[in-house]
């Protein structure tokens, strides 16, 4: 890793009034169901040295309150400094051409990142090959752990994602796990904390990364598990992979 800030790959989105689904290397990095938003997200864990593909699907809902708009770029930068135009690897601006109500691909771009020194773990994983029943059991296992306060189980389920962040963003996986436990303890200590019921019939399982991942969400694209406390909702969203034969959270 260079002495300056960590090398970052960031997807920046500015959107309003459109259904948006952005994937990098067939992994969902951003979705939006029409709300106005400015978004910036690190995509280091999903980047390969060469042949990275970004795809954008847009849909236009029948009634949009404001004039819709969309623009996206993928930026290469070092942590803490904005390189501006020089760092743009790929960009797309929707120019207002007609869109169907359901999201459909409007852009496919490619970029390389030859200088990355990490090798994503997910690229070496086997296909998930999980039945819906197995995925449902995973969700119920997660919910049960939240309800019973099984912090260690939840940490174990998340560990592969911490390792990906360690590799690609320079975090210490053990430190992330420690912080995760601490946050879960604080959350569960809140007397108003509750886990909202999960309707398994509304879950959607979407294969990603060539089948190496399965994104679990509601049909709407929202997080599948929602907890609540007085301050507001705390959702849990995840994408699972098969690691050492077990379903684990990869991101």
């Amino acid at each position: 890793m260079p002495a300056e800030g960590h090398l970052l790959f960031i997807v920046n989105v500015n959107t309003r009034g459109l259904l948006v689904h952005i994937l990098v290397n067939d992994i969902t990095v951003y979705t939006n169901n029409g709300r106005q938003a400015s978004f910036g997200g690190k995509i280091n864990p999903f980047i390969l040295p060469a042949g990275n593909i970004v795809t954008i699907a847009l849909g236009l809902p029948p009634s949009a309150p404001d004039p819709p708009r969309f623009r996206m770029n993928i930026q290469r930068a070092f942590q803490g400094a904005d390189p501006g135009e020089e760092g743009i690897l790929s960009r797309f601006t929707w120019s207002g051409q007609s869109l169907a109500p359901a999201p459909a691909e409007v852009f496919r771009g490619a970029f390389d990142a030859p200088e990355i020194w990490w090798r994503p773990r997910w690229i070496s994983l086997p296909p998930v090959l999980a039945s819906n029943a197995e995925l449902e059991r995973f969700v119920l296992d997660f919910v049960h752990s939240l309800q019973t306060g099984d912090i260690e189980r939840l940490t174990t389920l998340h560990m592969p994602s911490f390792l990906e962040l360690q590799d690609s963003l320079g975090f210490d996986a053990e430190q992330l796990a420690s912080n995760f436990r601490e946050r879960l303890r604080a959350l569960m200590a809140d007397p108003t904390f509750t886990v909202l019921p999960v309707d398994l019939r509304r879950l959607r399982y979407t294969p990603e990364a060539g089948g190496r991942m399965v994104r679990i969400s509601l049909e709407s694209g929202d997080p599948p598990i929602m907890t609540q406390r007085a301050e507001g909702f705390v959702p849990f969203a995840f994408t699972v992979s098969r690691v050492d034969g077990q379903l684990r959270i990869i991101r």
Partner: protein
Amino acid sequence: MSDARATHPMSGAATDGANNDFYAAHPEMVTPDGHRKPIDPHNKKLRDQWLLAYAKHGGKVRNPTPAMKAAHVRQAGKEAKAMPPNAVAPPSVMPCSGNGSAGGTHLKTVASAPRQEKFAEDCLLVDAACACEHGRVAGENGVLYVVPEQHAFGGDEIKCISSSMGGCHHHIRWTVDGADTLSVHAPKTSFGASAVMPSMIGFMGLHKIDPRVYRANATACRGGAPSFEIRAYPPEKLEAQFNFKKLREAIKKGFELAPIDEEEKNKFEFLEIQISCAEQWKEDKKSPRAYCECEIAGGALPLIKTPELSFQIYPPNLLPEKLRDYIKFGVFVSIGGEISFSVAWIGKYWPDTSKWQHDKVEAKLEAEVELELAVKASLLSKDVLDFEIAGKTSFTGEAKAAYGEPAVEAEVKWGGLEAVITIHIAWRIFEHQTTYPILKERTLWKHEYPFHGEKKEGEESPKEE
């Protein structure tokens, strides 16, 4: 007999007979020195008695048809409506200057001479009229509004014409008083009706200026005719310009609330709002009326120019404290859009009704400036994996032109700005679509801006051109 009129030419013998009978029946209308007081033509009862006597002595009398009566009633109604509440109604009959009849000044006789037989008959005034130099005549209410073309050369020439019957015609006398005095023994005369030089009365108050008033009356030995009032208004066109500084300053001040650094705000360019106003009195060519025409137009498009840039949110404490470590300085606002303001107000002020007639009444204040939050927190904060922020506010404005007195009501305000934040940090606990208030909605300025009227404290004065 109620609406009967004597047919012209009138019979002298029948007139004498009618006079004798009438004054015999009304000794109270004969002065001790034998002068007979003229009959008030508006006194229907006395007039009918005289006409009855006139007919008895062979004078020809005609009755108007129902259609003529209806037309007369309509005309009378129109005149009554057209009369301003404070209209000056001159006496219906003025004392005859030639025969020293009752009600007038009793002149002491210093000499007497035998009158020639042919002039022994009194002059009977039957009609009179006043017209301006453009040929417009006074209305049924006796008022004529004039706008002289210029102040010099005596103003608008008012021609006074009378018609009489019998007598010598030398006892017809035109008297003008009011702004000028004139007394002429002649069946017709003329005088100049000039207007006062206008000065600014408050903001564009030309329509409130008082006219110079002249009253003209024709009198004779007997009979009567309407008296007239001539109201002269100044011909000048007064022009002024308003800057609408208060509105501009209100909008400028409003942008001080934008959550960006002062230095960045200084890059905004606020343009001047120029509104031109003009007022001028004009004669209505088709009637004896006059009006003050007022035209107000102008504005600024755009009123503000903003650089199309994103600014770091400022001050940072506008951001939620619990997330400040993650957000650092990674929230920005972008600003875009424009504000325009325009006024178009055209109207006529009619002094006889004290009302405005509106030809065009428009005012527009269109503000489409939006402040939108943007984020670079992922780039600037190590722990943040992804960050979504949504929030926008608008600078809105509304203006409407007032009916009645020319005025514009305007209101400008900022909508509230709330940041809806979803933040995802490395150890997976994140803020989910949580709303944080950044700015409160507030009305910045609401004001009615009259173009006329007295200058109020804090308001700019118009700059005369």
